[in-house]
């Protein structure tokens, strides 16, 4: 609970919005109103900015509000205090300049892979034939040319993620938000998906916020790794720069010495939070309350 002793959020807000940041969270608090009338403060006093072209990972113990933060940047959640700025402008409603890759399956099960990708262009007013053409190109780019007519239930978990990736990227969003996108996949598929993501991202580097609980994945992919404290009222405890050269292969990079040094540094601060969350989690089970 030491975070509650921090100076009030408003103080940091003025400093929290550097010019030109793709995403700037300044003094953001997010409180949920629970069904039983109680409140749960998920995150508190968050100052975080992501520059255009920067790949930032957010790591932290389970239930620390990483996804909540991403939802605030997406405009799916309005912060109870603080500001969210997108390219210098305050965010109102949904973030139209962002694409979001969800942890759970978000494809429309009643549409084929092609239709799922194609439909993403409809709100932009792209004509039907051009949309179909571009959707095919994107499915080819994620390696699914042979699966365009498959329905989501006919695809593997990794293939569904590829379709989701194509669906999000075809709109060419300026900000990419990813919430443990590879969480449900097996280890090998995660590596393949990680390399695919890096490959696609490096073509026209967009601002990317990547939430994960896997520290190795975070380091291998990112320019910066942000460590969050255990919830409730989670905050940012550390912010590390990953100065590994690009292009990277996320399987090979894990073997390098520099990688291990960075890993050791970040783990030293993450471990404290994970242990804290673990200790609290046991207590919380007794009370019976939990995070929404």
């Amino acid at each position, binding site marked *: 609970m030491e975070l509650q002793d921090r100076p009030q959020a408003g103080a940091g807000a003025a400093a929290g919005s550097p010019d030109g940041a793709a995403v700037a969270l300044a003094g953001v608090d997010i409180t949920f109103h629970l069904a039983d009338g109680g409140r749960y403060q998920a995150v508190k006093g968050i100052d975080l900015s992501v520059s255009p072209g920067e790949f930032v990972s957010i790591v932290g113990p389970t239930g620390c509000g990483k996804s909540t933060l991403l939802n605030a940047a997406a405009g799916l959640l309005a912060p109870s205090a603080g500001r969210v700025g997108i390219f210098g402008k305050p965010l109102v409603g949904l973030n139209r300049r962002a694409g*979001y890759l969800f942890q759970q399956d*978000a*494809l429309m*099960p009643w549409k084929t892979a092609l239709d799922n990708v194609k439909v993403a262009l409809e709100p932009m007013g792209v004509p039907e034939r051009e949309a179909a053409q571009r959707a095919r190109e994107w499915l080819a780019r994620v390696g699914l040319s042979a699966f365009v007519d498959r329905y989501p239930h006919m695809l593997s978990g990794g293939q569904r993620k590829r379709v989701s990736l194509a669906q999000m990227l075809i709109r060419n969003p300026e900000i990419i938000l990813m919430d443990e996108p590879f969480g449900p996949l097996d280890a090998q598929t995660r590596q393949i998906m990680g390399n695919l993501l890096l490959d696609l991202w490096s073509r026209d580097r967009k601002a990317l916020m990547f939430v994960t609980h896997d520290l190795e994945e975070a380091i291998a992919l990112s320019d910066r790794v942000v460590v969050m404290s255990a919830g409730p009222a989670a905050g940012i405890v550390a912010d590390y720069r990953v100065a590994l050269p690009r292009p990277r292969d996320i399987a090979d990079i894990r073997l390098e010495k520099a990688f291990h040094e960075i890993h050791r540094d970040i783990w030293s601060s993450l471990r404290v939070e994970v242990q804290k969350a673990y200790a609290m989690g046991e207590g919380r089970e007794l009370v019976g309350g939990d995070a929404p």
Partner: protein
Amino acid sequence: MKRLKLLCLQILVMIVFLALWHVVTTTSLFGDVKTSQFFFSTPLAVIARTVKELSGPAIYWHLGITLTETVLAFVIGSAAGILFGFAFARNALLSAVFDPYIKAANALPRVVLAPIFALWFGLGIWSKVALGFTLVFFIVFFNVYQGVREVSPTILANARMLGMNERQLFRHVYWPSALTWMFSSLHTSVGFALVGAVVGEYLGSSAGLGYKIHEAESVFDVTGVFAGMVILTIFVIAIDALVTLVERRLLVWRPAQSATTTAT
């Protein structure tokens, strides 16, 4: 080989049943033959009557009437069910206010409405359509309501992040989801439309399969009643097969369901 064996056993059940029926009604083992035949007819007589009925043109006119009533009840009932299902699912106040009344109306056994409908709509097809409507409406209504309410929040959030407006959300998310739920109850709702039609005809009409059965019953023509039932059964199986065909076509995107007992 296994399927062949199953088929043989299934046919065997029918043969045993018919043989038993035949023995009971044509021998004096279980009492007077005349009495047994009055109550149970005989399988051969029923089969002969069924064939005779099906080879004449009159029965198809009756079937046509029943089919018309069924289709009208299904179409009108579904349309109203979809409309109200959407309205209630998207409007919390509306659904909260009407909730007890909907439940009460659904709890009422609809057959008791048949005399009222006969009074209101006459003895023609519309009183039967009205009865079928009350049965179909609630099934479709509840399914569409559920379908709209239970759209996965992730799919919805994703669609919003893709920039969809309300109209596009309706077209790509709510509508397909509601239809899925509706189609999953297609067999039930078509079945109930038919029940409405036949029961309505039975209680008062001048045409249709229900009328045929009622007519036979009123002159103690048991053979005619059984023949009518056989024809009705064939009719229902044919409609059900059609529905299965439609369902397969419409729900291709769904993983194979274990609910169907027929081999895929």
